């Protein structure tokens, strides 16, 4: 009896799993598919045949290309800054006891749970009252602000699980503080740093809400797309989305392979 029920339960679980996967993948599949849609009308919502021409004309819309370049530059810059500051913060919070540690911990979590709308609005009023012109730099600052906490948390988790005698062993063997950090500490927390970097990049490249407050007259990729919703999103957007998604999948695969080789 149990066997029959068990088998039925297994089937149900299988079906359920596939439904979830379908649900997750469907929008991405549609995005990718419509990058190949040979559309004639203005809208890119009905399937009209297969073509590769949008891949050929990827940069045919100068404004869109500029927005994408903008987004990539901002993502790279904010990721670098975030990783440097976030790693230092994560190390300090995971390793040492210091005055103000509780406050810092609290602020890190506050930064994660603050609604983007609030963060965007308050940043805008800060920049306006300080008379700072809004451009790529203010966008980058904003992106660093909202991704910093995520990098800090991933690095801190890694630091906490780090055996403190590893660093002592390095010092014991003659390594100074910098050599110890570079040769022992950093490689040990690297998985956390890389995970944090990927998060920061992903958060930055598709941010709309905060960016829309502090962009001034600059357009990023997400801002350009939202602006073009009314007139119809060109297939180039699908292609760019597909390419960004492809790079993401590639990184995930490389990471998985590296992780398997490590164990």
């Amino acid at each position, binding site marked *: 009896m149990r066997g029959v029920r068990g088998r039925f339960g297994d089937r149900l679980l299988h079906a359920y799993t596939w439904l979830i996967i379908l649900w997750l993948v469907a929008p991405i599949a549609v995005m990718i598919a419509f990058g190949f849609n040979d559309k004639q009308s203005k809208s890119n919502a009905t399937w009209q045949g297969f073509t590769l021409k949008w891949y050929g004309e990827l940069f045919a819309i100068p404004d869109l290309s500029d927005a994408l370049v903008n987004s990539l530059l901002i993502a790279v810059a904010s990721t670098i800054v975030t990783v440097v500051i976030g790693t230092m913060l994560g190390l300090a919070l995971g390793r040492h006891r210091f005055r103000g540690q509780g406050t810092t911990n609290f602020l890190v979590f506050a930064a994660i749970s603050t609604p983007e709308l609030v963060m965007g609005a308050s940043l805008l009023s800060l920049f306006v009252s300080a008379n700072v012109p809004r451009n790529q730099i203010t966008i980058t600052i904003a992106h660093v602000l909202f991704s910093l906490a995520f990098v800090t948390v991933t690095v801190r988790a890694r630091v906490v699980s780090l*055996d403190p*005698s*590893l660093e*002592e*062993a*390095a*010092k*014991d*063997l*003659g*390594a*100074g503080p910098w*050599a110890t950090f570079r*040769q*022992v500490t950093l*490689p*040990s927390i*690297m998985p956390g740093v890389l995970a944090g970097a990927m998060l920061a990049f992903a958060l930055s490249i598709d941010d709309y809400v905060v960016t829309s407050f502090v962009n001034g007259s600059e357009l990023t990729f997400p801002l350009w797309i939202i602006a073009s919703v009314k007139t119809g999103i060109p297939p180039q957007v699908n292609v760019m989305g597909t390419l960004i998604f492809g790079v993401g999948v590639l990184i995930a695969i490389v990471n998985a392979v590296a992780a398997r080789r490590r164990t």
Partner: protein
Amino acid sequence: MADQSPIDTPTDRAIELEDVLKEYVSHGEVVQAVKGVTLDIAEGEFFSLLGPSGCGKTTTMRMIAGFEEPSKGVIRLHGRDVTDVPPNKRDVNMVFQSYALFPHMSVWDNVAFGLKQKKTSREEIKRRVGEMLEIVDLTGREKRRPREMSGGQQQRVALARALVNRPRALLLDEPLGALDLKLRQAMQLELKRIQREVGITFVYVTHDQNEALTMSDRIAVMKDGLIEQLAGPREIYERPATTFVAGFIGTSNLLTGTATGGVLKVGEGRVLVPGKEGEVSVTVRPEKITLAKQEPSGDVSALPGTVSEVVYLGTYNSYAVRLADGDEITVFEQNAHDATVTAERGDSVWLSWQAQHSYVMGS
């Protein structure tokens, strides 16, 4: 017991601790982990710090390595005051209890780490790391990662990583603690061999008395942050300085009472304590006691009692004998050719031993 040449007056002092004290503040309370330790360790000596958990062994060793700064006192390495010198500038290396091998490096890179820090030439690193891996019998495993090795192998990598730097002293904090008994015993011999081969001073922390007794030239027995006794293994075993040492090292029997005229009366029996008067405590090792059915004659300590337990332990039998006052005495008896026991459970027996085997503490 390797106690052929107890080094009582070190001529060449490798490590000196002078009244070293270490206080920690935890939760607003001052904890004295080490309460004033003075000791000299000679060049080339195998020196052990032995004591129960929490007695300050690790703290003492970490101060020698430079990871902790003494709250008071002076530490000298080869005559140089290193009290304020950071660990990376000290001429000693440490083998950690957890091994602390760098997980992201191969065995080779782990062992070469110290030499690379010192900017040793490529050829010399190659030669010395190769030699050292040969000494610890790990040739051919250079490319492995630490986690791909067994506990014993990791232990030897840790040893090689420290020894390759040719430190003037090697500090080992319970290096065999994570190994099972068989491997432990094999590694004890191995460590001894390596120490002879490289001729470096070893400072060895352990809470295992057998390990300390078999391996050390000298032992410092610690308790509550203080040294109870510092001597060679034989002396520590035969002539424990305090009741704590007597109880901690090996099995021993303790008798206390008031002596009059060099004799301690225990019920109908007597314990000879020549020249002692008043409160005394007497320690006797189980293997020094003879067990017999008749009252012994002659000038020996003798106690009557009843056998409450006989345990066959292969090479010897262990008896528990209850005295009239309820105290229990342990006696080891070498297994005879015919494998018979002298007494059974419930038998009345006499225990006796020579006066020289009583170790008397007190006035």
